[in-house]
């Protein structure tokens, strides 16, 4: 036996003896994905030989990108600090955008209200009570012009969290660019455009899966020619995690959905290297620090292998998993809200150590309402302190080689691949979603997590331990309850001032295109340019495609 192994045995015995006297805090230690955490990790768990190193980690900027997608990572440029913002009217949100840009934010990220996300105008009966609540209300190009007033689109990159009507909002963005004299070739940003996750976890779907997938591949094809710097999809694990999945499920389901998009795009006749470099991802960062870091590293390695081996992509850009991270909204507590600043710091640090390309840090008051300007500023400052003061960005992948992190990265990769195979066997992500498979798996994890909190096995500071009586309530942001009526009035004025004949013609053209096979983007863009509303455009498509009705489980 080697010197190391006998030494290790000796130490194990010593540790056992110690636990007889001082029992460990728990019988078993596990991560959120139920991966066992050993007492100690050594080089036997991590990366032990040069060959091993090259195969599993490689160098940053090289396949399989475990240590990051760029050779120098944050030594060249920090991640993009991109705070998700939007509430009330386009004017109010424009004010918040300018404030955040003044405070040193480096990219915009638009939150739309639910009627916008589901393709209803603000005066639709379905929109009652929801206008401007969780994001900004956008009914037509007119609102979009106000949203970006005074913000030159060639100088910012903009992320838009929009899925079912992503094509319409992207068309509006292109049209605002045209009005500012900025060619679509120079626009930079991302649309989420991830419909599968909506069926699985978030619920803002409109159409059934098939036409939804067509809209997505139409966007891929259109942008590869006309908006070349646009990230045409951000395949999102964020909402899967918020719905209660584990870290392993988050990566597994997100990558399975990504595989489905790739296959749909290939079926529509696109070449892999034509669109794959513009795919991007969106992940969550929760509290289990090392598991989160390992999760990001594993996701990059799995994606690189999938793209090179399964889809035979040749362009290294197609192999790179680029991602935005948001800290975990569901980990925040309404109790003792200032504690959330600390949680967000830990989560943001995990995202940075995991090599994220952009980051949103949540505000302390989000478990109560939309963030106030003050709490949005603290959230942004949290990122700036990590970037400029902590030194963690000064070397690439500083935790690479940590015995624990490498072991956890390997374990997450194995478990993710096992899930991907299970989903493959079900016929892929679209089928797995239609069968409710992912939904059930997520729900079971959510219920287990709730039970662990209720039993006290999982501690949530301020909720089931270290509780305060009579807490002071912080000041909350309130959205103007009159906004629904104000937007409705604006819509009335728009409908009487625009050229309604033109609108009718463009909508009829769109309808015919939807019934056929043409790429829908140019038709949507034409309708947007003449101020057809979001609701009118989506209703035209609803007439042709129908609406998705989930099966209950």
């Amino acid at each position, binding site marked *: 036996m080697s010197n190391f192994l006998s030494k290790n045995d000796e130490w194990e015995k010593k540790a056992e003896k110690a636990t007889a006297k001082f029992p460990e805090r728990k019988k078993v230690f596990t991560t959120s994905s139920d991966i066992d955490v050993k007492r100690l990790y050594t080089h036997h768990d991590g990366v032990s030989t040069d060959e091993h190193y090259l195969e599993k980690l490689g160098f940053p900027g090289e396949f399989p990108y475990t240590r990051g997608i760029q050779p120098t990572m944050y030594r060249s440029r920090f991640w993009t600090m991109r705070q998700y913002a939007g509430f009330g009217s386009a004017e109010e949100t424009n004010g918040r955008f300018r404030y955040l840009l003044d405070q040193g934010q480096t990219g915009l990220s638009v939150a739309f209200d639910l009627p916008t996300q589901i393709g*209803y105008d603000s005066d639709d009966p379905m929109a009652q009570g*929801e206008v401007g609540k969780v994001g900004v209300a956008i009914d037509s190009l007119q609102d979009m012009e106000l949203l970006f007033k005074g913000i030159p689109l060639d100088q910012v990159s903009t992320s838009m969290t929009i899925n079912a009507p992503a094509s319409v909002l992207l068309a509006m963005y292109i049209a605002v660019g045209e009005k500012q004299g900025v060619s679509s070739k120079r626009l930079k940003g991302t649309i989420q455009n991830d419909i599968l996750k909506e069926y699985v976890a978030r619920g803002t779907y409109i159409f059934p899966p098939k036409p939804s997938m067509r809209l997505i591949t139409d966007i891929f094809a259109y942008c590869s020619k006309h908006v070349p710097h646009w990230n045409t999809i951000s395949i999102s694990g964020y909402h899967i995690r918020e*719905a209660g999945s584990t870290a392993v499920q988050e990566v597994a389901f997100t990558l399975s959905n990504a595989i489905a998009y790739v296959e749909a795009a290939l079926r529509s006749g696109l070449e892999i290297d034509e669109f794959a470099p513009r795919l991007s991802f969106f992940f969550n960062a929760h509290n289990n620090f090392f598991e989160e870091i390992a999760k990001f590293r594993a996701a990059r390695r799995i994606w690189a292998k999938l793209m090179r081996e399964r889809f035979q992509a040749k362009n290294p850009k197609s192999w790179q998993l680029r991602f935005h991270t948001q800290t975990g909204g569901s980990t925040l507590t309404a109790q003792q809200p200032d504690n959330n600043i600390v949680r967000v710091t830990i989560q943001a640090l995990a995202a940075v150590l995991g090599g994220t390309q952009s980051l949103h840090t949540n505000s302390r008051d989000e478990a109560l309402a939309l963030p106030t300007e003050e709490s949005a500023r603290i959230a942004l400052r949290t990122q700036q302190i990590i970037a400029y003061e902590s030194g963690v960005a000064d070397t690439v992948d500083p935790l690479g080689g940590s015995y624990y992190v490498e072991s956890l990265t390997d374990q997450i990769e194995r478990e993710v691949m096992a899930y991907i195979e299970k989903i493959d066997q079900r016929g892929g992500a679209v089928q797995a979603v239609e069968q409710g498979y992912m939904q059930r798996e997520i729900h079971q994890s959510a219920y287990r997590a*709730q039970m662990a909190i*209720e039993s006290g096995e999982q501690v949530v500071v301020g909720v089931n331990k270290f509780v305060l009586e009579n807490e002071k309530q912080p000041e909350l942001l309130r959205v103007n309850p009159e906004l629904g009526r104000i937007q409705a009035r604006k819509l009335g004025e728009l409908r009487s001032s625009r050229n309604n004949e033109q609108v009718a013609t463009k909508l009829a053209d769109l309808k015919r295109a939807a019934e056929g096979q043409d790429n829908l983007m140019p038709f949507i863009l034409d309708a947007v340019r003449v101020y057809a509303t979001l609701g009118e455009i989506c209703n035209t498509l609803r007439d042709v495609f129908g609406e998705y009705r989930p099966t209950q489980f």
Partner: protein
Amino acid sequence: MIERKIRVLVAKPGLDGHDRGALVIAQGLRDAGMEVIYTGLRQTPAQIVAAAIQEDVDVIGLSSLSGAHMELFPQVVRLLREHGADDILVIGGGVIPDEDVELLKKEGIAAVFTPGTPISVTVDFIREHVRRG
């Protein structure tokens, strides 16, 4: 005589798609021996009330995280009253600030359970307050 199980309708009014809490509560109430019907997403107050009457439930549990609770929750209570079904207990949950909870109670929402509430608290409240025998 077999005791009738308490019947609960768990509903998501409005356009909010965050149903993790609603689904966890639904399962928790089922595990506590109640019969639970879940409406699914995007229900109008009128649809919720119609389903509650049709299913002859004892309790409606409303969940919303989008901030639309002040408009949508009281409307459910009003419609129940109009249909003479105001013996159905209405409770709520979601992201709801404390100051709104008081207002909702004035509008006839019996209780509001925000995140961090153990399911057993909700179960006990329902058992104590169900008005139909």
